[in-house]
Every structure is written in structure tokens, then in C-alpha cells.
């Protein structure tokens, strides 16, 4: 079972989100989210970079991007037109505590605005209630020893506080 932050090839496109204008957003292995306007395919425009390793990305109807940051063990949000990524869930180092993630792979929302995260490294899916006023947290990636992957799949109900 490979760590999701290890890629087959050094450069890879991880995942894609499309907005209602057919703008394509791509999360790349080397830490950037790039965008291409409809019908363009040359050099992508940097939306955000210096993420740990953006993996799954999701976009809502307002054009806000939500990114499972595999290398940062967090979920970040980028408002439409912004270049600033704000941590909205976890980002408290690698671990399996309720406020931690380990190599998150994907994000999704339900119609109540709850955030679900595919927590690849902890073999679970987590649910977070997002604080709408989530403030910018600085975080550092730490890579402790390899943790055992086997745990029961449960859904945790959480209130995040910043």
C-alpha cells in the first residue's frame, strides 16, 4: 500500500475540478493548483502554490476551491479569484485524532455544508462541521514513523474550533 504522497512519476496531475465557466483547475504533485480557462491548454495559471501536495479538489457553485492537501494533512479553501489558501480542517500534523488527518485524498460536501474527507492514511472517512469564520492557521508538516493502516471505518461528528 503506497503512501499517497509518493507518485509513480515525479510529475503528475492528481485531480481536476471544473467550474461553471468550464475553467479547469488541476492539483499537481509539486504543490500547485493551476487553472486553465476554457479552450486553452498552454501554460496553466497558478492559483495557489506551496501546498504540501494538493490531492483531491472540489469546487462549489461560488467557485470556491476545497483542496485535500495530502502533504499538509489538512483541507484548505481558496476563495474564487483569490491566491490565498486557508486551512479549514485538521492541519495539526499527521495522526488519527479527530482533528488530524493522514494523507487526505479527497473532499466532498453534503447539502448541509458538512465537509467529508477521505483520510487515506488512516483508512477512514471523516466529517467536519466547518466554522465559517475559519482563520488562517500556519501549520508545519511532520512525518513521524509509518503508522499502521488498519482501522475501522467510522464517521466522526466534529465541531471544529480555531
Amino acid at each position, binding site marked *: 500500500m503506497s503512501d499517497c504522497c509518493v507518485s509513480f512519476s515525479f510529475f503528475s496531475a492528481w485531480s481536476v475540478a471544473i467550474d461553471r465557466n468550464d475553467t*479547469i483547475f488541476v492539483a499537481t504533485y509539486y504543490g*500547485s493548483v493551476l487553472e486553465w480557462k476554457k479552450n486553452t491548454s498552454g501554460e496553466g495559471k497558478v492559483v495557489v502554490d506551496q501546498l504540501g501536495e494538493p490531492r483531491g479538489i472540489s469546487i462549489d457553485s461560488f467557485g470556491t476551491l476545497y483542496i485535500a492537501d495530502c502533504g499538509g494533512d489538512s483541507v484548505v479553501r481558496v476563495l474564487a479569484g483569490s491566491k490565498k489558501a486557508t486551512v479549514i480542517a485538521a492541519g495539526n500534523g499527521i495522526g488519527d485524532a479527530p482533528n488530524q488527518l493522514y494523507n487526505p485524498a479527497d473532499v466532498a460536501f453534503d447539502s448541509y455544508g458538512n465537509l467529508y474527507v477521505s483520510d487515506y492514511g488512516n483508512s477512514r472517512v471523516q466529517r467536519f462541521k466547518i466554522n465559517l469564520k475559519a482563520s488562517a492557521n500556519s501549520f508545519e508538516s511532520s512525518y513521524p514513523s509509518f503508522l499502521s493502516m488498519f482501522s*475501522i471505518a467510522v*464517521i466522526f461528528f466534529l465541531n471544529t474550533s480555531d
Partner: protein
Amino acid sequence: MAGSDKISSPGGIFIDRHNTLFIADQYNYRIIKLEYGATDATVFLDGLDYPADLVFDSEGTMFIAEKESLTRWTKDPRNRTVLGRSDWFISVTIDPKQEHLYTTEYGHNRVKKYTANGRAEQNGTEVIPNVNSRKILVLYVCLTVVFLSLFFQHGVLQ
């Protein structure tokens, strides 16, 4: 889920309009489903080939990025159609108009597009042939050159 069944290193997740959570339990070759408010998840579809990601359209048609096949599953009955092939799909996304699927693959720096309701297998279109920034490539080449020259210098001084 029955017994002590567990998910293992989940890949993509999707939530449909009924707030049902679907999980690509890739290393167990299956899709797991958890209805909103339920405490037990169930196996939705199994016997798959390392399903890494999935999406549904608004009509309930499911699309799965299996390892070597991008597959479409109609709602009722669940019939499987192969839309595209790869060495190893990583992800699949559907556009808001629900017309096209976009995929990424291991070992390829590209984004490909497929017609969601295509009847037959497609080659797909490379909408972004190369995701990599030229600046990043130049940066890495420069770093390699610097590293090699330091290494060489050290070797000469010895």
C-alpha cells in the same frame, strides 16, 4: 458493514443529492455506501479493478475510475460500459453541465476528457496535454546542475 469489514486507504469520495456518501475503497476492489444518518455502511458495488475515484451525474448514472478502465454504470439495471482505458487512472470528475468526464492518470501529466453519455469506448481528448509548468522544470534542472557541480567540486578537491 457486516462483521469486521473495514475500508482500506480510501481514494475518492462522492456525495449524491440524497446526501449518501460513496467511498472508493480501492484496495478492497469496491465502492462503499453510507446513507445520511445511517451508522452502518454497505457494499454498493464490488468486483472492481482498484477503483480509485467515482462520480454520479444528476440522473444517478455512476462513473468509476477503475485502474485500467473508465467505466459507466447505468442506474437500473446496473450495466457496465467501458468509456476509456489507461495504464492507471487516478481520478474522474464530471463538469457542471454533466456532459464530460475529466480524468488524470499515473505517469501522464495530462488531463483527458471523455463524453459522459458516449455509447462506445472512446480514445478521449487531451484537453491539457502537459500540466507541468516550464518554470518548475527549469528550476529542477538548475537545482540538479548546482547539485552536480557541488558534487564534482568536492570530488576534485579530494
